[in-house]
């Protein structure tokens, strides 16, 4: 081996040692943060600027879980994430596709056992898209209050699953100003509001088809859409809801 080749090998080995060291640090950090995969309490986990999504200059500050995220509580989990991340900190705000981000890490967000998602994405400005959310077990009062509110970056929710006891209310989609696509599944059986969203027609129809059938019960529940979303539906489509005992406001 020539001296030049030896110097090249030394330089490459130095980089490999550096990368191995960084990987070891990442493993140690996230083993601790996620309790070797056993963590289920994720309230306030990514609150405010704990993590900065700046791959280029601050990768060590990025949200990079090692294990699947399986919160039993996701209260304020991403509240105020990436809020003014540049102001006063010297970091540049970056908005990412959380679904793709987690796929790249080979990590999933599984909320099927979550009982509290209050403020989960409240004032969150870090994502353009978020993964499928199963709220079947969010049945307690306030458990979905402001789960997505005061945010204008999130446009797509891959989907939401609801059960008959899922605690939707008028605050659940508070000021989710740019949410335009979300396919609902399961059953919705609580009055709630989507009037602060920009849901497209496909999403709205999925909501109507998920509303519980109240015929024969004498009960009325209300879905508040507001004038803009109402205008996206034909009379026949509105009747999907009204004929099932739902009043559209």
């Amino acid at each position: 081996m020539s001296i030049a080749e030896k110097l090249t090998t030394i330089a490459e080995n130095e980089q490999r040692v550096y990368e191995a060291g960084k990987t070891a640090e990442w493993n140690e950090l996230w083993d601790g943060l996620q309790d070797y995969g056993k963590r289920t309490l994720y309230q306030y986990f990514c609150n405010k600027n704990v993590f900065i999504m700046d791959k280029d200059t601050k990768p060590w500050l990025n949200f990079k879980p090692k294990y699947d995220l399986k919160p039993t509580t996701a209260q304020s989990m991403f509240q105020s994430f990436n809020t003014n991340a540049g102001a006063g900190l010297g970091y540049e705000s970056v908005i990412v596709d959380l679904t793709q981000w987690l796929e790249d890490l080979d990590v999933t967000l599984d909320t099927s056992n979550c009982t509290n998602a209050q403020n989960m994405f409240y004032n969150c400005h870090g994502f353009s898209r978020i993964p499928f959310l199963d709220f079947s077990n969010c049945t307690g009062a306030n458990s979905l209050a402001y789960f997505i509110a005061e945010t204008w970056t999130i446009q797509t929710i891959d989907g939401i699953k609801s059960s008959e006891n899922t605690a939707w209310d008028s605050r659940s989609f508070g000021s989710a100003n740019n949410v335009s696509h979300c396919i609902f599944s399961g059953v919705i059986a609580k009055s709630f509001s989507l009037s602060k969203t920009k849901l497209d027609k496909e999403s709205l129809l999925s909501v109507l088809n998920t509303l519980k059938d109240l015929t024969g019960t004498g009960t009325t529940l209300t879905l508040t859409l507001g004038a803009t979303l109402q205008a996206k539906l034909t009379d026949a489509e509105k009747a999907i809801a009204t004929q099932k005992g739902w009043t559209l406001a």
Partner: protein
Amino acid sequence: MEKSTIELIKLTASEGMTLTNGETYGKEVYLGCNDSADNWREIPDSEVPKPAPLESEE
């Protein structure tokens, strides 16, 4: 060919007013099959309450 009749009962608030059943508010309301116009009344727009956030922390 299929023929069907769609019945929608729509309440529309007067100008400057909002419809409410005490819990929900709206300018135009399409009544569910178990609902009644008697359950709704008009209030001035200024009396429509603004929802308060559960937490004010940023």
